[in-house]
């Protein structure tokens, strides 16, 4: 059953965005040279690109929104949803390829059915869930989220899915459970990138239990009202919109409740660059990419990166009293 609902984020944008963020956004956009350069460039931009980034950009006619498949055309900040084509052809999915256009090409024959997700560890009701059961058991909601990649690009994506908390409530974590550990399918036969020796496959990610229980944390099964395509993490993936994109693990086969903090693939690949938390934060720099600004796909130029990717109000409480610099 499909319910078009934006639970938790169906709030006027004036309420959801703290005043100072709006103010700083405005100020940032006012940077005269910034906008001037943007508008000059608009003239030489290829098709499908918006001009200078703006706080509440109007929906461009160039953006291909398939009619009837999304209930709205912008996120709660008024920024337009990215086109289905951009979302499904520009992907980071190293299990298939390290090129952005590689996953869409190399994942065409990736089998997503039958598919089972094993949920276990420190829970009272462990279980193996068929993907079809997960789709019918939990109401599928539409959630329009910003996705901010650690590489400093971003998109706005209309996901379909259900809050992870519903699944966790069903399996009942025990009192010892402190973290949730997720694992992607390991099958180099269909995921050629897993032959690469640069990484410890399979892909592993983790969340603290309270992060996992937050209403924003989504198990996505679709986007633009359609089932996920393999390059987007079919048939089921995590979406944690206030963290860098790599936290949102794809094609999940295993979810374990554990006591110790899991080590993610990226933590083991480059511990100084990727921490466990990986919260979007313009104040915590990364050695390679500026985290203070980002390129929104479909726009020219850069826009300011928002703390917790603009979801500060919903998630900042999770980190009260924690140093975000130390726990990057």
């Amino acid at each position, binding site marked *: 059953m499909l319910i078009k609902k934006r639970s938790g984020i169906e709030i006027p944008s004036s309420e959801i965005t703290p005043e100072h963020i709006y103010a700083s956004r405005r100020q940032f956009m006012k940077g005269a040279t910034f906008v001037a350069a943007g508008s000059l460039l608009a003239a030489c931009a290829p098709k499908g690109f918006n001009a200078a980034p703006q706080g509440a950009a109007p929906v461009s006619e160039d953006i291909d929104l398939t009619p009837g498949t999304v209930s709205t055309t912008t996120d709660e900040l008024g920024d337009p949803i990215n086109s289905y084509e951009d979302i499904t052809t*520009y992907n980071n999915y190293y299990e298939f390829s390290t090129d952005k256009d590689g996953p869409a090409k190399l994942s065409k024959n990736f089998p997503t059915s039958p598919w089972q997700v094993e949920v276990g560890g420190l829970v009272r009701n462990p279980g193996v869930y068929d993907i079809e059961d997960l789709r019918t058991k939990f109401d599928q909601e539409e959630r329009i989220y910003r996705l901010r990649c650690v590489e400093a690009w971003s998109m706005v994506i209309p996901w379909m899915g259900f809050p992870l908390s519903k699944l966790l409530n069903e399996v009942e974590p025990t009192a010892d459970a402190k973290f949730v550990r997720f694992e992607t399918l390991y099958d180099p036969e269909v995921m050629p990138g897993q032959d690469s020796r640069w990484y410890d496959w399979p892909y592993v990610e983790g969340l603290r239990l309270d992060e996992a229980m937050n209403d924003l944390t989504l198990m996505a099964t679709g986007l633009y009202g359609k089932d996920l395509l393999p390059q987007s993490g079919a048939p089921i993936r995590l979406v944690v919109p206030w963290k860098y994109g790599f936290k949102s693990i794809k094609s999940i086969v295993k979810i374990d409740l554990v006591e110790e903090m899991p080590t993610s693939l990226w933590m083991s690949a480059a511990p100084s660059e990727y921490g466990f938390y990986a919260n979007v934060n313009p104040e915590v720099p990364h050695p390679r990419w500026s985290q203070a600004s980002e390129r929104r796909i479909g726009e020219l130029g850069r826009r300011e990166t928002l703390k917790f990717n603009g979801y500060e109000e919903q998630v900042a409480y999770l980190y009260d009293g924690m140093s975000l610099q130390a726990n990057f």
Partner: protein
Amino acid sequence: MSLDKKQKNKIIRIAGHVGALIPLALLAYDYYFGLFSPDFIREITLRTGKAAIVLLVLSLAITPLNTLFGWKVLYPLRRIFGVYAFMYVALHLTIFVYLDYGLSWPLIREAIFEKRYALVGFAAFLILLPLAVTSTRWAMKKMGKKWTTLHKWVYLAAILAVLHYILLVKNAYTQPFIFAVILGVLLTLRIGPIKQWVIRQRRNWGKGKKSRAPMNS
């Protein structure tokens, strides 16, 4: 019919210009037909950077190729590839500063001085700038010996360019390491004693071949 020296020189020059312009032509083609990836700025940044690094390494390969095979005829390509490498570097930097960062100086300052890769890349640009400016025959004559000294800085620029590439990639270092190995070999072949030894080997080998040839016929 064999070509005389002048004709060969001309053909090599033309081929050098055409070859060095291919990346630019491909960019224009993809732009015209709308074939860029959704992150258009990233793509053109990476492509101009790759063209610059390839041409820089190629321009440094010409002298070692002469050492190894006696291909002196390729010498004009040193300057041609070098100047085009700088053209792509300038494009690359312009895209970064203007298209990507929209001339927003606080962000550019942060990027250049806080990101190792950007700092190293910018240093390579600063080294290449005077080399490009003095790449004319006129400057070469006017500066005499100083010209040679100045242009030796290209070695450091190339090392910084490859380092810039290594610092930039996320984790799979295969490609930048290939450039590093090639550059390492090319620079090693320029070290005096090694160069002399290679030339001696080549000459001996050539003599041996010549003296054997009549016996085989």
